């Protein structure tokens, strides 16, 4: 008939409750263990004849000295912060001279009232509430070890101070002080309080006076039964935990008689009725539902819809900066060109803009001008004819960079164009425009080669210009498009780093395969060996750069900007005069076979001037997503002359082709050429969409 095992686990337990803490009730049962009640007995259902009821052994209560059961067992239900007085306190506060603080006086009043109404209900069990002195002192002087003298450390001092200040801090949590954010001269106390983070707590101690019978009211017999801590977030910490099904806890008193007491602590709070709980939940649900309705009523349900079957394009962008131009006080004039077929835009929309004139500043080795000019553009595409072959043309943004100096001279620094991105998402476009070169703008569309995208033709520089020096070492390409091309991989374009991100690479050893002939270069002389070619480059100002892409149409994106007609190379025409270092940095997102294999650098007469291997090497990676245009500035006369030159070239090309009837890439042995290192030093105009 052993007792249920003692519970030796006096660790604290943490509970959470959203209900107000004043509804908390605890039942504490305290009993001294004596030989008679140690053995639990159960009254026999039928007392046998032979068995003597154990109850007869219990000592009868007598008036003299024998301990009555009330002294040995006590049960109290305690509410939160309910003050139950101990004998010691009663004796103390009865004496008016001992009352110092208002709290003491209040206690005294209560004690007197209690005595008038018939004495207090509790004997041994009493409580210390949050406002008692004991609570603070206990925090400060609580001993953790059995050392003879445990000196509280600096941290303990600070924590004690914080505890005492908790009433002040309660007002400050959660709110932002609108004034006096900074305390310029903090006092020592302020520093102490604010360097330690503490959530304000309310504590309550349930104590027991375990003195011998008749000698209640001595401080040394006070023992802590249970500590309750509640913080403002509804976290209740009980140490030791509620007894529940575990056995009772026990206390062994020290002193001459080591007595054993056992006690249990139970949660006696009345639970909410199920109807009440349900009602509460319904109220909450209502509240949240109404808040949600309110929010969605603010949001609404209508949205501007497009005409079914139409594609509506919204472009929000900025003209960000211009970098690398020679002159100062730059401004950008740009306009958007919509393809005539199937595209429309709202009437009020402005499709062009001029930025402010910005004086440049140095950034690294370049000079940069910042515009941050916003533009928004909206267009609709209605596909009326269901021709499957026709790929939609995409609008193009043309820009012109001009400089305006002190004497009000205006000169064109360069031209550029970029096709608006076809996939949604952010994209940076770096538009290179020729630096101080002559060129002309010719929007040419749908000509003999049926390239259905607009491109700019580049003309020829004045022949008298002295060719600038070029160096043949593979210089690192600086701020070329691939470095900045961060198209987000939403649809189609895979994300991968630019091929020459990370610095210059070693040049590839040169075209391994023999380079082909392109039909229209009929008098093309494969060329002298490498060194002479380079010298040729030096002497002549190279003017036109043609890039040929032996790619397959499947590798091109669906935007249809560069449609490859079978049997014809995809030809992008560029030109530059000075500097002679030119690079084309384009990427093919789709198929590696669409990568550039080489490029030829031809002079005006069609003579081979230079060659370079592309694809793997850093500066030459061809992309059909965004062909770079290098229009260059020209005077009006040159412009007039240039246009005719270009069309003449086109006609010549067509004639050659007809004459030759050779396929593309007819191989011809070529001496291996060392790489002509090409790198870009053009002035890009950055767009961000």
């Amino acid at each position: 008939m052993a007792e249920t095992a003692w519970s030796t686990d006096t660790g604290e337990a943490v509970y959470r409750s959203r209900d107000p803490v004043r509804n908390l009730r605890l039942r504490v049962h305290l009993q001294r263990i004596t030989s008679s009640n140690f053995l639990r007995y159960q009254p026999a259902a039928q007392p046998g004849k032979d068995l003597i009821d154990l109850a007869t052994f219990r000592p009868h209560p007598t008036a003299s000295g024998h301990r009555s059961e009330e002294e040995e067992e006590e049960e109290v239900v305690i509410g939160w912060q309910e003050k139950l007085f101990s004998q010691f306190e009663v004796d103390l506060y009865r004496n008016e001279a001992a009352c110092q603080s208002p709290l003491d006086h209040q206690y005294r009043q209560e004690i007197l009232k209690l005595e008038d109404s018939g004495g207090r209900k509790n004997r041994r069990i009493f409580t210390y509430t949050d406002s008692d002195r004991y609570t603070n002192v206990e925090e400060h002087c609580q001993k953790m070890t059995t050392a003879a003298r445990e000196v509280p450390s600096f941290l303990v001092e600070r924590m004690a101070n914080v505890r005492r200040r908790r009433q002040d801090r309660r007002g400050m949590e959660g709110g932002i002080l609108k004034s006096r954010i900074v305390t310029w001269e903090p006092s020592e106390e302020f520093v102490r309080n604010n360097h330690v983070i503490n959530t304000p707590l309310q504590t309550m101690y349930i104590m027991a006076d375990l003195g011998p019978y008749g000698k209640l009211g001595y401080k040394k017999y006070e023992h802590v039964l249970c500590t309750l801590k509640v913080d403002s977030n509804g976290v209740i910490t009980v140490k030791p935990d509620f007894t529940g099904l575990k056995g009772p806890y026990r206390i062994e008193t020290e002193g001459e008689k080591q007595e054993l007491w056992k006690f249990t602590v139970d949660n006696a709070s009345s639970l909410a009725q199920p109807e009440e709980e349900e009602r509460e939940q319904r109220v909450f649900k209502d509240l949240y539902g109404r808040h949600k309705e309110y929010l969605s009523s603010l949001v609404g349900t209508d949205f501007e819809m497009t005409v079914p079957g139409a594609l509506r394009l919204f472009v929000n962008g900025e003209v960000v900066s211009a970098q690398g131009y020679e002159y100062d006080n730059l401004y950008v004039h740009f306009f958007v060109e919509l393809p005539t077929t199937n595209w429309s835009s709202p009437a009020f929309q402005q499709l062009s803009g001029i930025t402010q004139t910005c004086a440049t500043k140095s950034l690294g080795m370049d000079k940069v001008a910042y515009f941050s000019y916003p533009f928004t553009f909206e267009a609709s595409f209605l596909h009326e004819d269901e021709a499957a072959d026709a790929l939609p043309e995409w609008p193009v943004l043309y820009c012109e960079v001009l400089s305006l100096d002190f004497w009000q001279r205006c000169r064109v620094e360069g031209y550029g164009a970029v096709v608006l991105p076809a996939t949604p998402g952010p994209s940076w476009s770096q538009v290179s425009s020729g630096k101080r070169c002559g060129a002309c703008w010719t929007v040419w569309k749908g000509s003999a080669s049926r390239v259905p995208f607009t491109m700019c033709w580049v003309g020829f520089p004045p022949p008298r210009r002295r060719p600038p020096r070029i160096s043949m070492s593979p210089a690192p390409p600086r701020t070329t498009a691939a470095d900045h091309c961060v198209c987000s991989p939403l649809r189609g374009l895979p994300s991968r780093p630019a091929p020459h991100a990370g610095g210059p690479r070693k040049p590839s050893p040169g075209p391994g395969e023999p380079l082909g002939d392109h039909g229209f270069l009929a008098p093309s002389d494969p060329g002298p060996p490498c060194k002479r070619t380079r010298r040729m480059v030096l002497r002549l100002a190279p003017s036109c750069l043609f890039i040929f892409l032996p790619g397959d149409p499947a590798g091109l994106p669906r935007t249809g900007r560069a449609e490859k007609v079978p049997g014809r190379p995809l030809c992008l025409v560029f030109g530059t005069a000075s500097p002679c270092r030119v690079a084309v940095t384009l990427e093919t997102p789709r198929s590696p076979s669409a990568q550039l294999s080489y490029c030829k650098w031809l002079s005006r007469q069609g003579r081979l001037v230079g060659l370079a291997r592309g694809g793997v090497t850093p500066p030459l990676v061809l992309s059909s997503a965004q062909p770079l245009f290098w229009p260059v500035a020209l005077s009006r006369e040159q412009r007039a002359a240039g246009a005719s030159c270009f069309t003449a070239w086109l006609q010549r090309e067509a004639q050659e082709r007809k004459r030759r009837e050779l396929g593309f890439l007819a191989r011809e042995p070529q001496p291996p050429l060392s790489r002509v290192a090409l790198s870009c030093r053009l002035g890009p105009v950055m767009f961000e969409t």
Partner: protein
Amino acid sequence: MAEVHVIGQIMGATGFSESSLFCKWGVHTGAAWKLLSGVREGQTQVDTPQVGDMAYWSHPIDLHFATKGLQGWPRLHLQVWSQDSFGRCQLAGYGFCHVPSSPGTHQLDCPTWRPLGSWREQLARAFVGGGPQLLHGDAVYSGADRYRLHTAAGGTVHLELGLLLRHFDRYGVEC
């Protein structure tokens, strides 16, 4: 209706010649947009870079918009000012940036410019401080009258914005 959450921070600024910088920022939207929660504009603290060039603000931006259409997509406009030891504030740059339209985190670098005066004013600015400012702040986020300005390039403001979109796919908008 669709909803847009813009959650991010103005991290700081680099490239300015002045050192104690603060930034006044605002978000401007079209008429179809409604701000459900968050503050539409604000001002950061003044920061002096101790090490290096970047002045750090780490100023939070937390906005919740509801919209009926795509026009007037929110745009962020910034004014960077510097405060000297006498407490005077001097304009360091105006910047503009569209709030990105695709969901996810975006790192934005917004370059700034400031209006230039005559050479006399520029000289005065170098020695004494001051300088012209825009009369109407909306020139920063609308491009209509920009061509009248003569400006100089300022530094760059760095932002990190995260974007959450809701219900756009219901209306057939791909972002």
